[in-house]
């Protein structure tokens, strides 16, 4: 343990600088967001994820955001356990009919102002599951979606670019 901790003083951190966003689509969507409401929150956002039927690949990459390479919290973004503490609802998966109610209840439990981000192709448009008897066509079919982050699954870098669009002024 001591050796592992001491090593942290001598080696460079794993955490990497983030390059400028590459996807103009995300910048465009961010510009459409309500800038005034965003100012009220400053540069801190609390995120709450609801898996609405994803294959769990999106969750793997969202979890990766907290690893030392990406270190999400340095940007003022953090995942919170309760929807009552959250500003942003992240939705993954095509929204299965079995998860629809739980998703809506989570959204209703969040205080306003609040935003919804559809993470991954399934949440963005239903993905491969569009047309299934068991699925809605993505998050927009049940909630007002403010931002879409495409990818199957989106990489942590794409996720960071998308989420930072919410706090950049």
């Amino acid at each position: 343990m001591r050796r592992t901790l001491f090593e942290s003083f001598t080696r460079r951190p794993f955490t990497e600088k983030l390059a400028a966003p590459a996807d103009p689509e995300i910048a465009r969507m961010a510009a459409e967001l309500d800038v005034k409401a965003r100012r009220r929150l400053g540069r801190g956002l609390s995120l709450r994820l609801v898996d609405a039927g994803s294959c769990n690949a999106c969750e793997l990459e969202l979890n990766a955001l907290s690893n030392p390479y990406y270190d999400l919290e340095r940007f003022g973004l953090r995942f919170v356990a309760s929807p009552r503490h959250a500003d942003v609802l992240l939705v993954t998966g095509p929204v299965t009919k079995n998860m629809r109610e739980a998703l809506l209840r989570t959204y209703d439990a969040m205080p306003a102002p609040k935003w919804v981000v559809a993470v991954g192709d399934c949440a963005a448009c239903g993905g491969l599951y569009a047309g299934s008897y068991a699925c809605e066509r993505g998050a927009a079919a049940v909630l007002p979606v403010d931002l879409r982050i495409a990818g199957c699954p989106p990489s942590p870098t794409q996720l960071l670019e998308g989420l930072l669009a919410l706090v950049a002024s």
Partner: protein
Amino acid sequence: MTARDPSLPDPFDRLNGRIVAEHRPWPRIEVQTDAWAKAADRLSRGALTLLGLWGESHVVHMAVADTNDPSLILVLSLTCPEGRYPSVGRVHPPAIRLERAVADLFALVPVGPPDMRPWLDHGKWGVHAPLAAQQNDAQPAEEYGFLPVDGEDIHQLPVGPVHAGIIEPGHFRISADGETVVRLEERLGYTHKGVEALLQGADLQRAARLASRCSGDSTVAYGLAFAHAVEAALGWSPPTRAVRLRALMAELERLANHLGDVGAICNDGGFAIMLAHCSVLRESVLRQAAACFGHRLMMDRVVPGGVTTDLDAAGSARIVGLTGDIRRRFQRLIDLYDKTASLQDRTVGTGVLKPALAAQFGAGGYIGRASGRLCDARRWPGYAPYDELEFEIPVLQEGDVNARLWIRVREVEQSIRLIEQILVTLPDGPIRTENAIDPANPPAEGMAIVEGFRGDILAWVRIDAAGRIERCHLRDPSWFQWPLLEAAIEGNIVADFPICNKSFNCSYSGHDL
């Protein structure tokens, strides 16, 4: 275990039926109810192990293996024109949830099961039995009846489907006496996407994409299982280089998942430094996967006929560097785990799964192997190229969180060994062969069992003359692991539920389909 002891009675004896010629590589027989019931009886006595039970309109299929030689596999099919068949779950509990799922999707009803409640169907689809020959709009009761719990001072904790962390949705009904869990009841099905319905009529390309997304953490293993089943059905041989590259990707996937799990289990024991360092190792695997194969999780890289992405010399060098790096750094983390008494206090003796239960359920992966079950689909039934590679299968008897963690540690070491062997012996050549589907062919059926990081994945397909999927069933290892979590948590404190759950790490999406 490798060869049958001839003194044991043959568990397939007098399981007679019409052999279906187009089913490969193991036999499928169409049986009558007496042979079906006989097989159920042998399952209940442990002579056979259940591999899967799935439906089709008017037909119910069951795959079983000889417990003493799991390379011997048989599929039994029972036609049930009345929509009823003798319940296997009545005598063999591992079949109960599978039968409930078959009833939800196909309206095929088991006769005499101990549990008739709907499982995947939560009454929200707007249709009942979506895959049945005749659909109807009848809905099950909205209110799901949880098992009753009586007793002084017992209180209940409903948890989920929305959980506190970044995990998949499922509901856990915990009944506790003070801090001690008296009963855990799971309710799953929240991520049911209707994958089997979407697969029907899909061409092979779309079907492979759907199969690869049954459980995102096992995308390579699912892609492989589906590809193996299709190739078995069509007599299609992928090139040797592709076979090796598939194994390379499968081992990278196993490595990434086990590294992530070891960190996450320790984190649930309140030891965050392991999570931080293990997640760095996991990230390094994913980055090399992206650099070599163009996708961090290697999704859609394994397809019927081969692989889509080749590995160049620079990629090989990257992976050699990666394995050396992990070998060096992971050992120190494991020493740290081994020497931290406060962490071991959380893992040793916690969430014990008894070997008898693991054997009864035929639990695969680290769950089975940590509870004394010598099993690994890479060896039994076995598939290329593992017959030419050297690796050990770790087995422990304790069955606690600590044992499940150590099995993962040992498997990380074995995966590194395998990766290094694969890279040394990687032959040159094409990475994919095309298959000309002969329209004169009758429907072809294939089955495969592949070892994902979590355990054995079963894939079964029937392909029609036009080369489309007529019916495909994918059985996640979690089907035989989720029920065991309910048993393992009993008598533990409520606060240890997360660490027990993480040590199982069952798939919700793979189970719910």
